């Protein structure tokens, strides 16, 4: 593994204040985090990229959506350090005279928004389905798992493209730009939801027969409360890992859809949309239009993946 958490000694965890978050991030985890420079670097990248995307309305030098401020005379300006560039547009301008840095920041916000919404939705849907299937069992379990099996046999991006295509042809043409966001989120939600459902179902099957669950049952706790209050906290580890990795995959899949021209429109560009536009100018030498959104996307995806990798190793009891 790339991260170095595998061969760590076990440190006894010092007692800490109670609280779900504290217990989830017990000091073991923080210790292995500090010990892995790559992971710390990845976390920093995510923080910086995420923070600047979140704050883009304040820190971006220009508003790429303010059509009044755009001047076609400023189009195709190179980055500041290249001949002909100026610090007004640090990373150059695109074909419309938009500032590339601002466009990347706003695009990153859109990309992350899609990623987080998709993983959030998948989390709610997948965890509920998984708990239901594992806890109720019987035909519900069989049905949910069969559907999951079938969906899993198709690659995520294919499902996303097909959902997107179906939604596009079913929904009215003139509203497509407004609903594009929801369609894209839905398209990239399906596969992570399946993964959550399967994992949670598997862990639930194990937990369901343990004594604490039987005890809760005996004293008459409502089954729904048992599922969410007693079983769920015990299956959070793998869910957290899948959530992190799914975030990277969701961001990549959204970018792919947008790159193919099936995702977000030019009026609401994500990193993928920007790369799609930039590709048209690859041969004419305006490399900055494609390079910076690509770097942002690759950096984001790689850093989130590294975090997921570390989390998987750190939470894996076999590697402790």
């Amino acid at each position, binding site marked *: 593994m790339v991260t170095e958490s595998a061969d760590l000694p076990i440190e006894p965890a010092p007692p800490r204040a109670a609280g779900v978050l504290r217990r989830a991030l017990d000091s073991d985890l923080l210790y292995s985090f500090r010990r892995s420079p790559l992971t710390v670097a990845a976390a920093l990248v995510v923080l910086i990229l995420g923070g600047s995307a979140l704050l883009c309305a304040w820190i971006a030098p220009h508003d790429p959506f303010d059509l009044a401020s755009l001047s076609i005379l400023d189009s195709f300006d190179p980055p500041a350090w290249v001949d002909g560039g100026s610090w007004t547009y640090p990373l150059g301008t695109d074909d419309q005279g938009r500032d590339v840095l601002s466009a990347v920041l706003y695009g990153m916000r859109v990309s992350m928004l899609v990623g987080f919404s998709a993983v959030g939705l998948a989390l709610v849907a997948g965890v509920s389905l998984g708990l239901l299937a594992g806890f109720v069992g019987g035909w519900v379990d069989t049905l949910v798992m069969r559907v999951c099996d*079938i969906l899993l*046999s198709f690659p995520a991006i294919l499902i996303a493209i097909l959902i997107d295509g179906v939604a*596009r042809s079913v929904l009215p043409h003139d509203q497509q730009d407004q609903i594009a966001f929801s369609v894209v989120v839905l398209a990239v939600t399906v596969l992570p939801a399946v993964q959550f459902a399967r994992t949670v179902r598997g862990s639930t099957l194990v937990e369901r027969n343990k004594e604490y669950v039987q005890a809760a049952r005996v004293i008459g706790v409502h089954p729904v409360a048992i599922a969410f209050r007693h079983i769920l906290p015990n299956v959070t580890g793998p869910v957290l890992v899948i959530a992190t990795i799914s975030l990277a995959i969701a961001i990549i899949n959204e970018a792919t859809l947008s790159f193919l021209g099936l995702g977000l429109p030019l009026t609401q560009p994500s990193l993928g949309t920007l*790369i799609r536009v930039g590709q048209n100018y690859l041969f004419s030498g305006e490399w900055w239009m494609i390079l910076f959104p690509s770097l942002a996307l690759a950096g984001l*995806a*790689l850093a989130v993946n590294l975090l997921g990798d570390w989390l998987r190793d750190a939470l894996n009891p076999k590697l402790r």
Partner: protein
Amino acid sequence: MIAFVIRRLGQSIAVMLVVGLIAFSLFAYVGDPISSMVGQDTTMADRAKLRHDLGLDDPFFVQFGRFLLNAAHGNFGISYQYARPVQQLLAERLPATLELSFAAAVIALLVGLPMGVYTGLRPESWLSRIFMTLSLIGVSLPTFLTGILLIWIFAVVLGWLPSFGRGDVVQLGGWTTGFLTLSGLKALILPATTLALFQMTLIMRLVRSEMLEVLRTDYIKFARARGLPNRMVYFGHALKNTLVPVITITGLQIGSIIAFSIITETVFQWPGMGFLIVQAIGFADVPVMACYLVLVAFFFVVINLIVDLLYYAVDPRLRLDRTGTAHGH
């Protein structure tokens, strides 16, 4: 065995029926075919007559049954975009996609397998660490970005290879091949490499982890104790036993390669089915979409079926497990 095959076949047929239903619903609920066929001044009576003649007022299941029958005969109607039969359009583009996918699969196996064996045998060496880091980058980089990167390096900067199209193709019966011309082969290199990269990293990581696991087992220790040379232990005993999951995953990845070829074909404007479907979605060309949906689902169902059955044949442990699902392991 027979029960397993029957259950598995039943599942496959169920999937195909559901996919067929989705494809049919696309036809049935997207737009009104009558209004796109007739002029403004056609009377309601004429429209109703046409609707009746075309069978569009039949009950849902009658129409669905007719759709399935037509689909089974390879008849999916006329493309809105090209005004030609859909099955013809797809058949023309099938060779391009299959040749690209085949080349990618070969590259992925030929490079990924040795890399996986090496990193499995020498997990601590610096070369292995480089491979592993590169593979992580390979997994994280979206396919279209690696494609663009390769175009930029080999087509824009170095100017060695073409960045789009298929080059010259040779007509062999109903099949067009780019394997026989120099420009066709040159045009194949970049897209095939792009498509192979992801599968390559996957195969490498899989072989590596399987090798690591197998090398810890008792029978490997015993083989060593018998004094067998390393070469025999590694390739005769260890590698052979890692191949079952590798075959499964590689088989399943064939479908994935076809799916990812949608992206690669768009980046390289490769005249295959994937490029066609992306255009069709942008154009809301429902017949092409429906046909592609059914075709791809069919590919996947057949691949999964074959892999599951092979798995069952190869791994005797599964025969004892009567629960029937051949997934996971």
